[in-house]
């Protein structure tokens, strides 16, 4: 069984957000992480690998620096990595991105494609389902549980107040939620292997390697969506709800918190 997990290197928003003058993100100036939903998707694939011996390939589109996120995935247990990078692919919106990734996936033998639900830098949740459309595959989004049964996958698809259990025949595409699982850590030995040229090969593809795609659907020129303006979110604390306190305890609790922060 071959599983391809599409992952994205995204800015680590904990480290602060930096914009270019044109309103796009200055990715080079920001710390990066593997997108959390994608990491959960990778973990789901690795659990299937642990059970069935499936081969797990990770694929990413991005700057050459995005190779790091592939090595990180390999250090967690993925078998190989593919980096799709080319200047002409830059500035892509969801349409151009999904066109590009689908063009890369047409070169690969897959049974199951897993993507994250959405990336924390764009929050569109469009790329996964669009890839499935390009490839003519069934898609199940918002997976909170994934298991393989014979030639099908059984997925719990999350809704606000319920979930659906959906069985889909492979090949198909599933989009994963970060709450799907608790991703494993890389192992120290996995990291060493991921940087060992003899053990790990990162395949790099450019525009010429994409199959059945039209230039008019790629990069900034092929992107119907243009960013008018982007700004940093005003950060709010998540807050804390404390219940079951009587008035005296509540006062003491609040006073304690204020002292802790040196406000009083």
């Amino acid at each position, binding site marked *: 069984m071959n599983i391809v997990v599409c992952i994205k290197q995204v800015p680590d928003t904990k480290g602060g957000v930096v914009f270019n003058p044109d309103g796009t993100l200055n990715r080079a100036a920001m710390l990066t992480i593997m997108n959390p939903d994608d990491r959960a998707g990778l973990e789901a694939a690795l659990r299937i690998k642990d059970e069935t011996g499936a081969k797990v390939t990770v694929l990413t589109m991005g700057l050459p620096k995005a190779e790091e996120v592939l*090595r990180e995935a390999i250090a967690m247990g993925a078998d190989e990595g593919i980096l799709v990078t080319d200047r002409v692919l830059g500035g892509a919106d969801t349409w151009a991105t999904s066109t590009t990734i689908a063009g890369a996936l047409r070169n690969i033998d897959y049974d199951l494609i897993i993507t994250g639900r959405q990336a924390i830098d764009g929050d569109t949740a469009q790329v996964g389902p669009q890839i499935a459309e390009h490839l003519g595959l069934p898609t199940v989004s918002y997976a909170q549980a994934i298991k393989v049964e014979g030639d099908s996958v059984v997925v719990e698809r999350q809704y606000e107040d319920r979930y659906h259990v959906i069985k889909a025949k492979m090949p198909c595409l599933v989009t994963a939620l970060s709450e799907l699982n608790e991703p494993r850590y890389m*192992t*120290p*030995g996995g*990291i060493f292997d991921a940087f060992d040229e003899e053990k790990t090969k990162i395949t790099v593809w450019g525009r010429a390697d994409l199959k059945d795609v039209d230039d008019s659907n790629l990069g900034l020129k092929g992107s119907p969506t243009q960013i008018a303006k982007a700004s940093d979110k005003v950060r709010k604390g998540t807050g804390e709800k404390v219940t079951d306190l009587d008035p005296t305890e509540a006062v003491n609790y609040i006073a304690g918190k204020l002292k802790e922060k040196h406000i009083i």
Partner: protein
Amino acid sequence: MDFTLDKKHEMARKLFQDFAVNEVRPRAQEVDETEIFPRDTVDKMVKAGFMGIPVPKEYGGQGCDPLTYVMAVEELAKECGTTAVILSAHTSLCIDPIMTYGTEEQKQKYVVPLAKGEKLGAFGLTEPGAGTDAQGAQTKAVLDEATGEWVLNGSKCFITNGKEADVYIIIAVTDIVEDKRGRKQKRFSCFIVEKGTPGFSFGTKEKKMGIRGSSTYELIFEDCRIPQENLLGVRGKGFGMAMHTLDGGRIGIASQALGLAEGALQRAIDFTKERKQFGRSISAFQNTQFQLANMATKVEAAKMLVYKAAVAKATQKTYSVEAAMAKLAAAEVAMDVTTKAVQLHGGYGYTREYDVERMMRDAKITEIYEGTSEVQRMVISANILN
């Protein structure tokens, strides 16, 4: 000369950092307060492959180098000194001598499960009357010619991972020889002893100032019979083996000390930026700035010595001086920086609500165990005067 870490070491540090912040930090205060060995954290370290970092893959390890291991201990110590020393004693003092001196059978039988984390390791040299004067050790092992077993009698004290370990490296007197002038001299040998061996029991648990979750116990041997094949290395060469093992162990403790200093420095930076007195952050005062500058400089210097010793362990046959300098510097920096971090926290730093209080208590032991700072000075001076 290049002082930058390569990409794989950078990624390894990120792994250790993430693990320490997510898994170790939330438990550190409780581990200190309750003095309970953090078995759950150890289980997570096992799963993440931390228990055999510098051990070759064919022996169940991760196939990384001493520098990677050093960074693991360092990052753990930034959050919890106890967790760091559990890993250090296990790796440097138990696995390392078996890897260095063990037979293929011993490596398969003991290193593989230790490196996989199925078993935990410990090391016993110190005795009530033999600390810095390690040659004063009295524990004896006598070969029973009839059965071919070694019979161990005596006790060891202050043993890290004491009651929690499964495999122990024990140093005991096996022979008394006369030198040229007719003076009697002890000859030591090393043994691999398994928990549960009849005649092997535990004495009192030490109540300590710091690293309070670390299981520090007395080990007692009463006619404890060890199979002959558990003699490690050459009979009579045990003292040198123990000293060489401690060279490696000192790099582990130096990393622990470095991590404690770095952790305390970061907390002092965060606190002084937030804490306001006289209408401004105390980090705006020159005294604070100069203190932090001194602390950061000392930490960086210690780090260079620790990393240099780690690289020496990978590339040199002997590294006693590098290890001694790294431990001496890092331990004294840890004590100094944690003490200053408490001072910069003022009254809050003296309370157990703040990590620096625990870190200062944890730092003290790094000047004492695996060779006091005075022993490190003896090692270094003997080398430079020779």
